[in-house]
């Protein structure tokens, strides 16, 4: 950590201006001040002070009321229920994610809230019950009328309830597959330090492709990746 320390001591920061090179805040001090004002902030992914404040503001607000949140939860469970190996979209936190996105991207609010009311209206008319309280078979009967879209027609020209369901399905799936459960389900193996050394042979075979020997000969020899590069005058790598 010596390196960072030595660099920090050389930062003047805007505070110093041209006047006093001493007595200016270091980055650490400035950061401590900034975070101490942000009670309840629970994330750790490199936000700027302004971004942290915006997240806190969004979280302090509530868009979906209790009934709407319950309806969204029922919908998420229908869109992606648990299977024998993995939890449901609800287990993956999709409803909370949808609530956050409705505040983060307010342009979806009307379709979201309107669609939920449309569901309750239809459910009341057909089953004399709000959607969330209807039998699962009744819920599915309703969803079957709006869950499929015609790929030949732009979505914006299809009925509002179809657009609503596409929206909630998209948010549910993205909420699921960006969660810990969803990534495990998908089998994504990256986001971790590793050494890439080409496509596994069985995968090449499965997809009917092969590496060119000539091409491979130009590629990195991973056993020598930690040997410092040296070249001759013509740019030929020697190490």
């Amino acid at each position, binding site marked *: 950590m010596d390196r*960072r320390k*030595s*660099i920090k001591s*050389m*930062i*003047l*920061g805007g*505070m110093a*201006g*041209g*006047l006093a*090179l001493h007595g200016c805040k270091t980055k650490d001090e400035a950061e401590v001040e900034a975070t101490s004002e942000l009670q309840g902030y629970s994330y750790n*992914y*490199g936000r*700027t002070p302004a971004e942290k404040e*915006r997240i806190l503001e969004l979280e302090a607000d509530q868009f979906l009321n209790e009934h709407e949140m319950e309806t969204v939860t029922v919908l998420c469970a*229908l*869109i*992606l*229920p648990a*299977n024998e190996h993995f939890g449901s979209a609800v287990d993956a*936190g999709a409803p909370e*994610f949808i609530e956050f*996105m409705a505040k*983060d991207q307010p342009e979806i609010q009307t379709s979201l809230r309107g669609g939920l009311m449309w569901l309750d209206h239809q459910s009341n008319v057909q089953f004399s019950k709000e959607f969330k309280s209807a039998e699962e078979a009744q819920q599915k009967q309703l969803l079957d009328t709006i869950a*499929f*879209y015609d*790929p030949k027609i732009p979505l914006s020209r299809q009925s509002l309830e179809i657009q609503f369901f596409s929206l909630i*399905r998209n948010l549910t*799936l*993205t909420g699921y*597959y*960006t969660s*810990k459960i969803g*990534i495990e389900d*998908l089998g994504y*193996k*990256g*986001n971790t330090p*590793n*050494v*890439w050394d*080409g*496509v596994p042979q069985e*995968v*090449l075979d*499965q*997809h009917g*492709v092969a*590496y*060119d020997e000539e091409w491979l000969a*130009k*590629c*990195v020899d991973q056993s020598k*990746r930690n*040997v410092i*590069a040296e070249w001759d005058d013509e*740019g030929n*790598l020697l*190490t």
Partner: protein
Amino acid sequence: MQIKESPKMYDAIIVGSGAGGGMATKILADAGLKVAVVEAGPFFDPADPDQMTQLKWPWESPRRGAGTDRPFGDFDTAYGGWDLEGEPYTHKDGTKFDWFRSRMLGGRTNHWGRISLRFGPHDFKHKDIDGLGDNWPIGYEDVKPYYDKVDKLIGVFGTKEGLPNDPDGFFLPPPKPRLHELFYINGARKSNIPVYPSRLSMLTKRINNDRGVCFYCSQCSRACQVYADFSAESVLIFPAQKSGGQVDLYVNSMVREVTTNSEGKATGVSYINKEDRKEYQLKGKVVVLAASACSSARILLNSKSEQHPNGLGNSGNTVGKYLHDSTGSSRAGFIPGLMNRKTYNEDGVGGMHVYTPWWLDNKKLDFPRGYHIEVWGGMGMPNYGFGFNANDFNKFFDLPTGGYGNSLRADVQKYYGSVLGFGGRGESIALEDNYCEIDPTTVDEFGIPVLRFHYNWSDFERKQARHMQQTFEELIHNMGGIPLGDTPTKEEDYGLHAPGNIIHEVGTTRMGDDPKRSVVNKYQQLHDADNVFITDAGPFVSQADKNCTWTILALSWRASDYIVEQLKQQNI
């Protein structure tokens, strides 16, 4: 006097800390000069856990990586975007230009694609070939020694191919292609389109003991915590400080203008400290502007004085003119041969492992200049948007689209990694009538007059975009795939991105021998004030079908060597 002056006299004041400013910092500080680096954004270090986004998971963001706050997504490392609060820019005559600014130490180098291509001999003298635009006052042979030095100092992987206009360098070895890239290679060969290992500034092999080696997380756009990719602060500015250089960093400091004396020479800069919103002055023997092509032009135009009534460096009325961005057009295809994939870690480096440089002869085409092809695809980490229209490709198999329930899991799995996309990035012709200028009606929140843009594409660029689309469709068909979306029409400019979109804006302070038609000389020194230099992409006479960063770095090094020499000889 309300403006607070610093008593310290710097040898050089460098405005901006991206590629051009970072390189000037390194070279000038290493030469023993006392330098001030003035950056409009905050301090940034990709190794600082409080600022780090690398190796974070999508669920660590409440918006799962959506681009609400940061236009390239929540994990992208650019503090800024197309619109900055309190810092507007405007447009003239209903034209369009999108301006991406990143306010942080290292600027846009923290998130860029690291595509590191040298300009070739033709690129510096293209007027000689097709009569369009202007030649540079320098040629490849002037820049080659600096490209060589940049390769060795910073590190770039690639292969020696002996191509006439894509010169070889001192390369680290490239990574092996990924599965979709093998499909691309095969598809391209069917149309005799050449493919080569790409050339990116990431360390596939160690180049010194201060920087780490790539660990293949594919996240260079998040800036690398072990400094295995090129970002200006981690590779240039920090090393300059570490080796004992006299470098004072002024962060959150927004430069307003270059100050000049009664002889018209620069005396320093004035800037707004964003934290106390007061104006300060720094004094220096030399001022190096590297704030980005448009920001440097803005500073010059706002630096009006008795000696420079039209703005500094603007006696020939050229500042801001000849603004040009790369052309760009994109397309993606669904490749059935890439369905039903076994999953394994194929993150690779942050960007393409293979690419196609410009390969055709314009004599047989209806547009001048060329483009290179960038390729993307693979089983990337899910982020906001993943799973949208999860089974839309069912339409290609006459299966129902939409639905709900566990069958969606199978659909997501089946199509994961089956899309391959292209970006064409080409050369536009610089025109005097495409420019930025000061908008006299608008100031930013610091009271500094803002830029107003005027930019129109010509048919040259539109025809180039049409050719890109034809090529992409042919390539997708060759891979047994189906192009997604409709072919962009003439009314849609054939999918040509709006100017500025490719974020390769250059040319606003172009170099030349004639002070009436250029702003700087061949050493990037203002014709109108010999102690002011520009080391961003403003001095570019033409853009080439390359990316600008490697040339910014080489030219900044060259200009910095010249500054050191001129100071020694007491010429400036």
